[in-house]
């Protein structure tokens, strides 16, 4: 994995930013919400204690009646038309209470405006028997006797109800009612003036399948008498209304949870943020889940049965948190019991929307998302750029080092050498190593000539001593020894001379005055000379240029060819053909010397033109590995280069020199 990928991976750590930001937002939101809840709870307590003054307004629990049988009278904001249908009631359809009837469930709702009570009953009846099937509204004000208002029809449409009192049955014209047949049953809708009704209310349905049979009675209440009806009490409402602020809802319940007062409205959320689904989604993921917001709504059946309300009714304080997953609408609700002594009269429910918090966190969230997005991009981009820059520097350094090694130009300044960082250190170390290498190479190169120079004096002592010795009277044996010693000294001298050849060639190269000559003629004539010199080989000269006007030192080029030909002869066998060729390209002449023979060992390829590197494997002590080095010095001295390649069954040395020598 390269540096850039590594740093890119590291830059992924910036994704921690949004996570941390979200944590922060979540914390903030919770803190804000808790704060709001605290305030709300305080308000609820205040309302509860203020309501204590109105303790007599709270309906008392009457243990004689079951709570479930109590009828709740909804407060109607508009008057429904008496037509047998519920759809014009200002109530949702889930406000219909359900009770068991003989042919199926019976649904009913009771509502009231200031003057009258409205009744709607929907009865399931397989077989409607006019005149016998009836709906009865039972009402009483204990301890008075109970009365019943019966609704039955001779035919669908407007019906006349009869009221049964302790005095008997009488039609009651103040009550208007409507009977509406529907498939599977019928509806009854009625409007009854408040004065006709007592405090306790109950609904009975009498169903029969034939005019002869006695009807079966189903009651909304349990026992013989209906329990007290519950409805909102305006005195309490008025008392509580002062405490209600905008976007706040106050609900007062009695001890059983029946809603006996409500005030205020939760503002609908400004859904300007709804446009961003993404944010909503993230927000949902982030924030603590609450109960479904619809549960915070006043109970459609009139009785608040949420757990947090129950807690209050048991004397404790409680809070709850609602949030709609659809709209994001969130509501904080708190309850406080209204107690007198040890008795709990009811509970105060205070609800408030969390729009302020929401919009704050919403805004925070979207800013957070944009900021972290930008930050991540900037950081990743910066890191990427930085990594690119860094890796480019390192790569430039490594390339420069390689080039310096390859080109043997070990004194070149490497990139980043002045940089004050680790790459700079690396560069300086590299430079130092290269410099050491260069010095070592230079030492190797000069070693031969230095050595030959130093050995020359002792050799002179040996040879001059031997020559003197030869003038002394010597016996046969001594003469043999001196002759052998002379021979050895002579060979030593040849070796020393070969060792200093490189430095002399270098010296000549420096002082050479380039002359113009015909390279083709020179090669032609020298090929003939080689033919004479090496009788065991065949030499051929191929040339694809007519005339080759070259510039340089022909003597040195010949010396170079001598080395190459010497090499070619050594690695070929008797009778082999050594071919020398000359070809011309733009600006360059190419001279090749090729011979059949063993291929070059691969590991030697790069250093075979170096000083004191021999491919002969020590079998020939005359060669010190300087021949090809001298050839290279001459080629490079002419501004050219020398290379060696294995050919099919042989070796080919190629020298490429420019047509005109570079000015030095």
């Amino acid at each position: 994995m390269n540096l850039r990928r590594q740093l890119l991976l590291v830059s992924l750590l910036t994704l921690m930013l949004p996570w941390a930001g979200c944590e922060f937002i979540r914390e903030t939101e919770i803190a804000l919400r808790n704060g709001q809840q605290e305030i709300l709870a305080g308000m609820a307590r205040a309302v509860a204690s203020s309501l204590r003054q109105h303790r007599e307004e709270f309906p008392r629990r009457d243990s004689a009646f079951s709570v479930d049988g109590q009828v709740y009278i909804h407060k109607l904001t508009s008057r429904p038309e008496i037509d047998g249908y519920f759809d014009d009631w200002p109530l949702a359809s889930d406000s219909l209470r359900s009770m068991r009837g003989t042919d199926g469930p019976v649904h009913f709702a009771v509502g009231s405006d200031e003057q009258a009570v409205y009744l709607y009953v929907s009865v399931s009846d397989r077989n409607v028997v006019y005149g016998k099937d009836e709906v009865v509204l039972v009402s009483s004000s204990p301890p008075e006797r109970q009365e019943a208002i019966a609704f039955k029809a001779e035919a669908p449409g407007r019906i006349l109800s009869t009221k049964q009192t302790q005095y008997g049955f009488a039609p009651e014209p103040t009550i208007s009612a409507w009977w509406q047949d529907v498939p599977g049953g019928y509806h009854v809708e009625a409007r009854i003036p408040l004065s006709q009704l007592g405090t306790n209310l109950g609904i009975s349905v009498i169903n029969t399948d034939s005019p002869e049979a006695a009807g079966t009675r189903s009651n909304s209440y349990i026992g013989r008498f209906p329990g007290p009806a519950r409805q909102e009490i305006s005195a309490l409402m008025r008392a509580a209304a002062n405490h209600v602020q905008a976007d706040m809802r106050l609900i007062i319940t009695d001890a059983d949870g029946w809603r006996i007062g409500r005030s205020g409205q939760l503002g609908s959320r400004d859904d300007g943020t709804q446009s961003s689904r993404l944010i909503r989604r993230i927000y949902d993921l982030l924030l603590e889940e609450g109960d479904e917001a619809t549960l915070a709504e006043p109970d459609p059946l009139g009785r608040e049965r949420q757990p947090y309300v129950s807690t209050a009714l048991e004397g404790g304080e409680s809070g709850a948190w609602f949030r709609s997953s659809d709209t994001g609408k969130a509501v904080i609700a708190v309850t406080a019991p209204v107690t007198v002594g040890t008795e709990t009269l009811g509970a105060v429910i205070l609800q408030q929307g969390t729009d302020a918090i929401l919009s704050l966190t919403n805004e925070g969230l979207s800013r957070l998302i944009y900021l972290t997005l930008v930050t991540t991009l900037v950081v990743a981009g910066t890191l990427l750029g930085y990594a690119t820059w860094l890796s480019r520097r390192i790569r430039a350094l490594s390339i420069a080092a390689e080039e310096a090694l390859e080109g043997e130009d070990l004194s070149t300044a490497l990139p980043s050498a002045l940089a004050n960082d680790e790459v700079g250190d690396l560069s300086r170390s590299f430079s130092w190593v290269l410099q050491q290498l260069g010095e070592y190479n230079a030492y190797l190169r000069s070693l031969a000539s230095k050595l030959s120079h130093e050995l020359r004096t002792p050799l002179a002592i040996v040879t001059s001593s031997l020559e003197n010795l030869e003038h002394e009277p010597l016996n046969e044996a001594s003469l043999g020894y001196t002759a052998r010693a002379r021979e050895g000294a002579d060979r030593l001298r040849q070796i020393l001379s070969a060792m200093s050849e490189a430095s002399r060639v270098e010296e000549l190269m420096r002082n050479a005055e380039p002359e113009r000559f015909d390279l083709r003629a020179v090669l032609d004539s020298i090929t003939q000379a080689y033919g004479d010199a090496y009788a065991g080989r065949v030499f051929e000269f191929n040339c694809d240029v007519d005339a080759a006007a070259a510039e340089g030192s022909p003597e040195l080029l010949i010396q170079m060819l001598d080395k190459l030909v010497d090499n070619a002869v050594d690695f070929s066998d008797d009778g082999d053909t050594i071919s020398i060729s000359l070809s011309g390209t733009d600006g360059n002449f190419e001279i090749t010397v090729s011979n059949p023979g063993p291929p070059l060992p691969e590991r030697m390829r790069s250093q075979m033109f170096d000083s004191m590197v021999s491919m002969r494997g020590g079998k020939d002590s005359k060669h010190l590995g300087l021949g090809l080095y001298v050839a290279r010095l001459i080629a490079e001295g002419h501004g050219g280069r020398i290379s060696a390649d294995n050919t099919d069954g042989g070796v080919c040395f190629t020298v490429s020199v420019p047509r005109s020598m570079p000015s030095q």
Partner: protein
Amino acid sequence: MAKRIAIVEDEAAIRDNYTAAFRREGYLVDGYEARQPALDAFEGRLPDLVVIDINLKDDVEGGFELCRELRARSTDLPIIFLTARDSEFDAVSGLRLGADDYLTKDISLPHLMARIAALFRRLDAMQQPQGKEARLTRGDLAIDTERMTIHWQDQAVGLTLTEFWLVHALARYPGHVKNRQQLMDAAQAVLDDNTITSHIKRIRRKFHAIDAGFDSIETVYGMGYRWLSD
């Protein structure tokens, strides 16, 4: 009268060997190991020939200094550098200081003797009237084999002994290619290819100084050199 040769050489073994060899040839020999003792000894009387090593102990260029001082005192005293330093630069420097020859210690004693004998012979010839029989003429070239001098277009060409012998070997048979071995033999020296190349270059340059159109020494690539006569 026996000739007196002075050897200034810091290496005692070589000095002694040369001394022995010279004495065997009948020369009087004085050996000195440094510049100052040699100068002190030459104060009274100059020897007939001086052989100097360049590197005299710690005196790295002592031989050059000595040569300069001796040349200042005598223009015709034969001076030979005999040194281990084989670089072209040193050779040119030495010859420029007025040395008659610049030899490396590769040279064999017989070759050295031949050179010394030749130098004395030239010295002697200089003092004799010119004899016609010793002259060799090839066009503009005139070689006096006795005095070992060469004239080109009647102007003297200042050649060293080695150079003289090389030109002499080439010009004796114009048109004949002399290979390196033959030239080496003629010059009484063991010379490698590069040294011969350098010598030929130096010779050409000296002729060019007199006649810019000089082109009588031709390189026969791969074989050697030959003298072209008009």
